[in-house]
């Protein structure tokens, strides 16, 4: 099996990354509409991709931050199979009204939201090409799917007054002609 490594920040696998983000964001928003963040004055669902934002939003609490890590390509198939590592980082200080004493419960609630969003069926979605949005165009549906495994939770970590966790999920897709 011919497997090579890709830089996750490159544009080759961007459609799969964008599709997964859009789907996760909509599922998190549907599961808990109150899970929101304010980024540069606008309220939006509490999911962001770190590499798409200003570095100043990197440590926002009470939201899910996607960080794309390793990428591997299996070129043995008719269509190259890409596997992307996605870390989902989140942290919370609990609520001020409770003096932060509910931060463990707040983290557990985020665990549950993430589990519901990622492990729910179907664990696939039609891959979309969002590049047209940059020039005012529309989203183009592609011919293949993006699919992913179950979420795997890391240990909770204490960060000053916050508790944090990193979950991981592997996202896969076939790269269509012109994507690689």
């Amino acid at each position, binding site marked *: 099996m011919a497997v090579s490594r890709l830089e996750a920040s490159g544009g080759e696998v961007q459609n799969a990354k964008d599709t997964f983000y*859009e789907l996760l964001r909509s599922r998190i928003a549907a599961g808990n509409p109150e899970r929101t963040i304010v980024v540069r004055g606008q309220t939006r669902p509490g999911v962001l991709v770190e590499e798409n934002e200003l570095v100043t939003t990197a440590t926002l609490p009470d939201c899910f931050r996607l960080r794309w890590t390793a990428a591997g390509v299996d070129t043995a198939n008719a269509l190259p199979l890409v596997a992307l590592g996605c870390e989902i980082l989140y942290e919370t200080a609990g609520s001020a009204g409770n003096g932060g004493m509910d931060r463990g419960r707040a983290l557990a609630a985020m665990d549950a939201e993430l589990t519901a969003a990622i492990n729910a069926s179907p664990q696939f979605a039609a891959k979309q090409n969002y590049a047209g949005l940059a020039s005012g165009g529309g989203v183009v549906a592609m011919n293949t799917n993006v699919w992913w495994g179950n979420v795997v939770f890391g240990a909770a970590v204490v960060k000053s007054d916050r508790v944090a966790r990193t979950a991981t999920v592997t996202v896969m897709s076939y790269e269509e002609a012109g994507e690689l």
Partner: protein
Amino acid sequence: MGDLLLCGDAVVRSADALLRANGGRAALLRMPAPAVAGNDAEQLGLTAPQFQDAELSPVLFQRAESATTLLVSASAVMAVVGSLKFNSAEVLFETAAGVVIDEVLYAIVSSVASVWDGEPYSYCLTLRAPDR
């Protein structure tokens, strides 16, 4: 010894005078424009926000191996907070994309206010230089 009675405003003016006397200069606070509601292109990194630079003066810039800091006049900060309609200096610094000094954009790591009688007279920003 007579009682030392300084109101907050006098301390702010004194801090400004000290900053100027010690080589105070200007720096630019780079602010991103507000996000566009529901704009997927921004959230996907396809389009970047517009930026505007607000001048902070007087400031003292110190770059050492251990830390890079910027001491900023509170009066300059408050002027920017007011003109850009922010709730506080802390939110202003958290929102900023960084500080431009000698055409180099430094990220703001943290900000600490020095306060007299409940009123800040200067802010110390810890900066991070861009990776080269």
